């Protein structure tokens, strides 16, 4: 097996980012077509801020609503995939630095990952 070095890590990160973005774009586009086909002539206005519905504001809510084929939740699911892409990249970097036995970078990467996880599922 090819040893883990920075070049190989860069190759994998490149594929990971591309896949995550592409997947997310496809899901967002599908949700968007679905949304426009149902609400083409509804007025669009985002002048006044009303926080999005609860079902679009948490990972659990989005998953549940997307499961029942709510178009806007499908868009939101795609956006969650997009947000997860850099998180996955950091997760992969953690494994890669571990395999390279680079303790300093394992520690740095763990801090970054902890911040990301806190933002996504932490109490706030």
């Amino acid at each position: 097996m090819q040893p883990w070095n920075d070049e190989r890590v860069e190759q994998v990160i490149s594929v990971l980012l591309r896949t995550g973005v592409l997947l997310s774009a496809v899901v967002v586009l599908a949700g968007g077509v679905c949304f426009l086909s149902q609400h083409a002539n509804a007025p669009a206005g985002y002048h006044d801020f009303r926080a999005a519905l609860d079902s679009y504001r948490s990972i659990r809510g989005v998953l549940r609503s997307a499961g029942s084929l709510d178009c806007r939740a499908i868009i939101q699911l795609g956006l969650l995939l997009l947000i997860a892409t850099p998180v996955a990249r950091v997760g992969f970097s953690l494994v890669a630095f571990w395999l390279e036995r680079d303790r300093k970078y394992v520690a740095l990467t763990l801090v970054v990952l902890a911040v990301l996880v806190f933002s996504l599922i932490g109490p706030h």
Partner: protein
Amino acid sequence: MTNLEFTPLVFAISTAAGCLGALTGLGGGVVVTPALTLLLGVDIRYAIGASLVSVIATSSGAAAAFVREGYSNIRIGMFLEVATTLGALLGAFLATRTPTSILAVIFGVVLLHSAWMSSRGRPRDVAGQTPDALAERFKLNGAYPAEHGLEHYRVVRVKTGLGLMFGAGTLSGLLGIGSGALKVIAMDQAMRIPFKVSTTTSNFMIGVTAAASAGIYLSRGYIEPALTMPVMLGVLAGSLIGARQLVSARVGVLRWIFAGVVAVMAVEMIVSGLRGSG
């Protein structure tokens, strides 16, 4: 306006913003948010939510190409992301407590500053700089493909860079931008990292920085799916077009595009913010 008219319009604006964002290392958010608020009257909280999500797309889409071509330095990226993500958390919490008119003014001031800094250029001569101990310890020095083979560079003033990156992260979370401008300033001007390495590593870092505030934005309801959909898709398409141009574009030209567009947007944001609070 109906959804069928609004969505393509937002998509077109976002495509242009994404293209410019990738060209300059700025991220599309910096252009998308003023465009949505100034041209279409969108509430700034929806605009920064859509913008924040779409800069993740810009960053990741363009970064995939740059990482493979060897311009980005993933160690510098990860090292500095410790500072940017912590800053981003702070910024996102501040965003939910700051009046929108003040957000608009801060947005404008940040943009003006970026434009001014980037148009000044920087001294070319980097010889005689004292080597930085942190840069050695964290293996930040690197090389990138230039015209005549690999060009090596040494990183200096790492602590200053970390401080600026924390600030860049805070602004990213506060304003829903990638804060690419400040990241480029921190790397290019403070740490003396070559401009192309700075812009592409900045691009690479933007996604992680933005993801650190995205969770908080989501739970506060800033991410409105129907609005974010055309913004994200447009910025992504634009960033792919822009990334293709970067390798061939001249650095001097980039700086001027960067400075000009940003300055105009900045003044408009400040005016709109002051009007809103008056």
